[in-house]
């Protein structure tokens, strides 16, 4: 049934494509040809040459001008060795439809309806579904949205024959806004019963995906913004997440911020077949808290400096991260550059292999620059992680990546990326790809363009 529904939705979207010829249509295509070799001790070297195609299609102003069709997906063809995903049959081809839906926008109240496969980001809800959704503003500052349909299943967990998700998904958000001062939202998601997993270790750790939550935005003064959200797991009867951020702009260009986040592992990971297994031992309610602050200063339209600090505390141990960054942007992307430094200092428990003298601390350095002209574009990107204690005999993990391309026409560009580096995984690692991008907008009959 699910497959039939998915095919029907894809077919409905494809049927809309001829009409797209009469509408305002934009097409974005990215083709990537990669080459890499895997060589592992005790097994033969394998060469992989995957060709991957990403395609985005947006057809606006269909029908009476309020209807639009949107499609995005990818497909891969292996030209050499086949990549075989765990638990899946060997195949030289793969692909996914990320979204494909029809949308109708009404003239008033920001009202719109969708049907097909799409993502929902509303309040605490972040889901992908095959179904329908609708939203509208209401009088007196209220607003409402709702969605429902079939869950989009993902990869099966090896040995389980399921991805751990129920088959149906429903939810929505109700909100209230008062001037430029306040927004309050209530949102929730209800997924039908999760499958029973065979792994006995998951008893009490894994179950249905059902959350309720609230969100807040408050700006009592134009210099101040407070925002946040909290979610409550109705199955475990515990708070899953709380996140709050306070921003103050005391001067033009200067933004000071403080943030607080709190998570309970069991309540947050309860409906994830993958993450539920990662809960340590019988400590099902590990608490994570982060407290941080940052300062951003735009020196002018081109130059922005920032500094940040965050303290992490978990039942396991504690850590802190601090650093700064500088960014330079010329208009129209002609030149963009950045430099950053961060240091993560952790207690030994966060080391890859914890021991009394181990460390998970590292320095992070980054430098990048990119330039775009009418005919050519290119970039250089250096990233280096310097470990305080060796990881698998290596003191650092670094990578230098370069990209060079040319605009063949205003819509068509060809570029190539090459990166080289060394890290604890590989003595040296070289990767490359070729990228062909096509991005165009076709205005329909009668359009001003």
């Amino acid at each position, binding site marked *: 049934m699910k497959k039939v529904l998915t095919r029907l939705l894809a077919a409905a979207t494809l049927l809309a494509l001829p009409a797209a010829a009469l509408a305002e249509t934009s097409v974005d295509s*990215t083709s990537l040809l990669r080459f890499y070799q895997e060589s592992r001790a005790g097994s033969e070297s394998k060469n992989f040459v995957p060709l991957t195609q990403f395609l985005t299609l947006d057809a606006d102003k269909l029908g009476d001008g309020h209807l639009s069709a949107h499609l995005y997906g990818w497909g891969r063809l292996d030209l050499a060795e086949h990549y075989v995903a765990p638990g899946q049959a060997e195949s030289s081809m793969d692909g996914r439809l990320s979204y494909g839906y029809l949308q109708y926008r*009404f003239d008033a109240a920001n009202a719109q309806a969708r049907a097909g496969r799409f993502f929902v980001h509303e309040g*605490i809800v972040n889901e992908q579904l095959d179904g329908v959704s609708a939203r509208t*503003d209401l009088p007196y500052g209220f607003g409402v949205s709702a969605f429902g349909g079939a869950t989009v299943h993902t990869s099966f*967990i090896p040995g389980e024959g399921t991805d751990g998700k129920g088959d149906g998904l429903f939810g929505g958000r109700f909100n209230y806004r008062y001037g430029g001062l306040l927004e309050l939202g209530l949102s929730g998601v209800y997924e039908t019963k999760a499958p029973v997993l065979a792994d006995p270790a998951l008893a009490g750790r894994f179950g249905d995906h059902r959350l309720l939550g609230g969100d807040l*935005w408050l700006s009592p003064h134009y210099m101040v913004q407070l925002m946040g959200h909290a979610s409550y797991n109705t199955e475990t009867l515990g708070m899953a997440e709380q996140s709050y951020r306070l*921003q103050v702009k005391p001067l033009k260009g200067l933004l000071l911020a403080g943030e607080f986040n709190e998570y309970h592992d069991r309540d947050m990971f309860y409906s994830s077949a993958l993450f539920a297994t990662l809960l340590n031992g019988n400590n099902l309610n590990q608490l994570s808290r982060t407290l941080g602050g940052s300062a951003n200063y735009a020196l002018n339209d081109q130059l922005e400096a920032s500094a940040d600090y965050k303290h992490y505390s978990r039942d396991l141990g504690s850590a802190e991260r601090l650093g700064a960054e500088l960014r330079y942007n010329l208009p*129209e992307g002609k030149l963009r550059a950045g430099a950053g430094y961060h240091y993560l200092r952790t207690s030994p428990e966060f080391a890859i292999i914890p021991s009394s003298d181990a460390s998970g601390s590292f320095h992070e350095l980054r430098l990048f620059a990119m330039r775009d002209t009418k005919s050519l574009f290119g970039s250089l990107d250096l990233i280096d992680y310097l470990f305080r204690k060796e990881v698998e005999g290596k003191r650092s*993990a670094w990578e230098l990546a370069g990209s060079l391309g040319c605009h063949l026409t205003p819509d068509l560009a060809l570029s190539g990326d090459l990166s080289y580096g060394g890290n604890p995984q590989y003595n040296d690692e070289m990767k490359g790809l070729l990228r062909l991008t096509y991005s165009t907008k076709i205005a329909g009959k009668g359009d001003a363009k």
Partner: protein
Amino acid sequence: MRRPPQTLTILALAGLMFALAACAQLRALPSLPASHPEELATGPVSCAECHEDQQKGTLKAFAAFNHSRAFIANHRFYAATDDILCATCHKVSFCADCHTNQTEIKPATKNGNRPDRFLPHRGDFLTLHKIEGKLDPASCYRCHGRANNERCVACHR
């Protein structure tokens, strides 16, 4: 006790009038345009450069949406409540570069020619995730929580 038919008729008429009044009110509420009326320059924008007023539709000041580094790093708070405003400039595929399920290539590789974009997992994140994952698993969960990415389940089962 059965209600007289007149009472039901009056209730139905009152309900219809209420629904019509609500629809009439909705028709009077403003809407954001489907797309930004003017083409914008590439790169991070500052909405307040042109817009001084408060938005009609979302009732938040335009300056709140200036694409500073802080805004980009914390865009989740805005996208969760004002995605209809985001959609006036961004196609959904822009979001789906990172926020998707079962993607083929990590975003930093797909957009390797755009080091200016805040794309996660640059460099050797395979090593780094063994530290970052223990430190802040909730940050992993936001994207990978229920996606069961093939490369995650290959080891974490």
